[in-house]
């Protein structure tokens, strides 16, 4: 793995698995049977408490987003309804958490903060997952083609990705959104547009390794076409990498959405998004006396980022047993997971420095 060496996924893991004592113990009766790559990963993942708790949180969040209308109906407060009498004190101060039936209080316009956070989760997940899926599709495709064919195709596609990576991303995203007017679809497209090169570079690096593997040679010896080899022989080996990076790119994209919304260029009020809730709170001064309508959206955002990062890291360990194996206590797991916190930036950094690393390598004999 030359690309993103910080976070390599090993495709040759099967060999290692044979010696994993933990797993051998699990399958005492039949030493080899039932050890499909995915089952093994799941076995490992299940033991990782931190990752499982994070997964639980993510599932919870997804359910909340899906059943948002139902939940807010239960609460009895719509996300955009302004409760000017019940939700604001006489002097116009928002109602605090737990008062007047507002579980997390109200904001400066008397709206239920909890309902808005629930609806905000829809936006975060839609943009986070949508943009990631799009980036993944484009990045995998281009990385696959560049890595597989090499030569001038790789040079051109590689340079193209390099240039995109030396872009002032945020600035450019802002410019595009400002020009075309903010909308959910545009937000997804713009975010995907700037995150696919990260995936592209990582996939490319992986494919360059896979291309030289004997099973690809075996397929060529059979007379399989390039397309067939890419689809049936190389792509299946990219799934693990794709799953890991997708999980870790989602929080990056969620933060990007929140940031754009915070800057007023993402989701427009009154539609609730965590980013614009924070921005709206900060425009007035009321939050200085009613902290909750600023702080709760912050907490929602941070917890979500955290959960995806922790889960992504657990997944990475599960799919790539070579990184830190053996019996770890929960404390150690937490600690190791914390390492992954550097992740969102880690991916970006890995990809970015590889832009120049490729050139540096050329310079050194």
């Amino acid at each position, binding site marked *: 793995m030359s690309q993103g060496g910080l976070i390599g996924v090993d*495709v*040759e*893991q*099967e*060999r290692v*698995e*044979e010696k994993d004592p933990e797993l051998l113990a699990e399958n005492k009766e039949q030493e*080899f*049977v*039932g*050890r*499909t*790559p995915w089952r*093994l990963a799941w076995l490992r993942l299940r033991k990782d408490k931190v990752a499982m708790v994070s997964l639980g949180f993510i599932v919870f969040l997804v359910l909340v987003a899906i059943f948002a209308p139902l939940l807010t109906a239960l609460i009895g407060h719509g996300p955009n309804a302004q409760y000017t009498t019940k939700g604001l004190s006489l002097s116009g101060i928002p109602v605090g958490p737990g008062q007047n039936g507002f579980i997390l209080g109200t904001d400066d316009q008397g709206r239920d903060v909890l309902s808005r956070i629930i609806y905000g989760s829809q936006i975060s997940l839609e943009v986070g997952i949508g943009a990631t899926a799009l980036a993944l599709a484009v990045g995998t495709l281009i990385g696959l083609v560049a890595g597989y064919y*090499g*030569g*001038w195709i*790789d*040079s051109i596609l590689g340079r193209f990705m390099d240039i995109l990576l030396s872009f002032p991303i945020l600035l450019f995203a802002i410019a595009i959104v400002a020009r075309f007017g903010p909308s959910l679809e545009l937000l997804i497209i713009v975010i995907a547009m700037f995150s696919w090169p990260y995936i592209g570079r990582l996939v490319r690096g992986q494919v360059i390794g896979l291309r030289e*593997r*004997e*099973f690809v*040679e*075996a*397929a*060529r*010896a*059979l*007379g*399989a076409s390039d397309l*067939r080899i890419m689809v*049936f*022989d190389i792509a*299946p*080996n990219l*799934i693990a990498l794709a799953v890991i990076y997708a999980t870790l790119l989602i929080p990056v994209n969620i933060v990007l959405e929140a940031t754009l919304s915070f800057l007023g260029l993402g989701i427009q009020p009154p539609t609730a998004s965590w980013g614009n809730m924070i921005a709206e709170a900060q425009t007035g001064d009321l939050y200085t006396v009613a902290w909750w309508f600023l702080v709760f959206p912050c907490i929602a955002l941070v917890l979500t980022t955290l959960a995806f990062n922790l889960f992504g890291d657990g997944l990475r360990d599960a799919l790539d047993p070579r990184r830190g194996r053996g019996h770890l206590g929960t404390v150690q797991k937490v600690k190791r997971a914390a390492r992954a916190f550097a992740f969102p930036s880690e991916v970006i950094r890995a990809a970015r420095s590889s832009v120049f690393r490729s050139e540096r390598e*050329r310079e050194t*004999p």
Partner: protein
Amino acid sequence: MTATELDLEAATSEGDLLLEVEDVTKYFPVRTNALIERSHASVKAVDGVSLALRVGETLGVVGESGCGKSTLARLIAALHPVTSGKIRFKGQEITKLDRRHMRPLRRSIQMVFQDPYGSLNPRRRVGSILSDPFTVHTQMSRAEVREQVRDLMARVGLSSEHYNRFPAEFSGGQRQRIGIARALALRPDLIICDEPVSALDVSIQAQIINLLEDLQDEFMLTYIFIAHDLSVVRHVSDRIAVMYLGKIVETGPVEEIYSRARHPYTASLLSAVPVADRAFKGERKTRVILSGDVPSPQNPPSGCRFHPRCPKAQAICATEEPLLEQKAGDPAGHLTACHFPVEEGEPLAMASREAVVATAPIDGAQEQP
């Protein structure tokens, strides 16, 4: 007379010529950066190899790691384009064929790979891996393919329960059986076995070799059998070719090579064969240990490429390249590339390294930057 002609003339077994390799070279450019950088140096992985093969024959190819055995195999299987030279299969030249015309030939030339772990896609089920040959080359229905794959698995000694398993669920020997099944699927004429057993336990090696021999009898297969030591190929081969740094240095019928090796390199390889294997022959008791590393194929020694390590080297060896030719007293078909071939019963002690360097001033061995 060229080496090929000699070789062909000498091929002992009757039967039609299946494969002719004529003065083939393969140079890998060292810097492969397209667009801007042009390659300067190159690795001469295979450098002027000629050989011929008749139907039903087994040719053993031996040599140290890195001498170009796998590269030669890949050239014959048309996985790499040749740098120069010709390869003819059943009289048809295959070196210049484009993809489309190459396709039917792929059915006839198959390969079993060195690494039973690396040659099976870890993310695909065995059934799917083995159905590849049929889906690529035939129009069979799914059910037919399934049927064929099950047959094939039975043929190489795998149970059909294994159909839905991943390669990781098999032992090394079983995996190599899968690799053999894949090569066998389309009933090829030639199978190139690239060190098919060197990654396996000794106890399993024999099983795989026996399987290969059974299959050869059953399907009239022709083999090129690659190995890095002589003891393995001995049992399966009719003829042997010994490679050193991209060149064939000695070739001949298997018993000729074992009993009367003429090239000092072959002799030293033989002396490294475990005693039990060699004892009944009652020859060469001194073991010759080669000093120094294998020189880089990027910058091979001048003259005879073996001279920096050769116990018999003299001044001429560093300047003049010996031809691969029949030496006095040898039967037809036994060719050696050496100025001073080993005589029968001659002790082959390692000359001191200083002496070698003194007589052979041009030493390319250590010049790697």
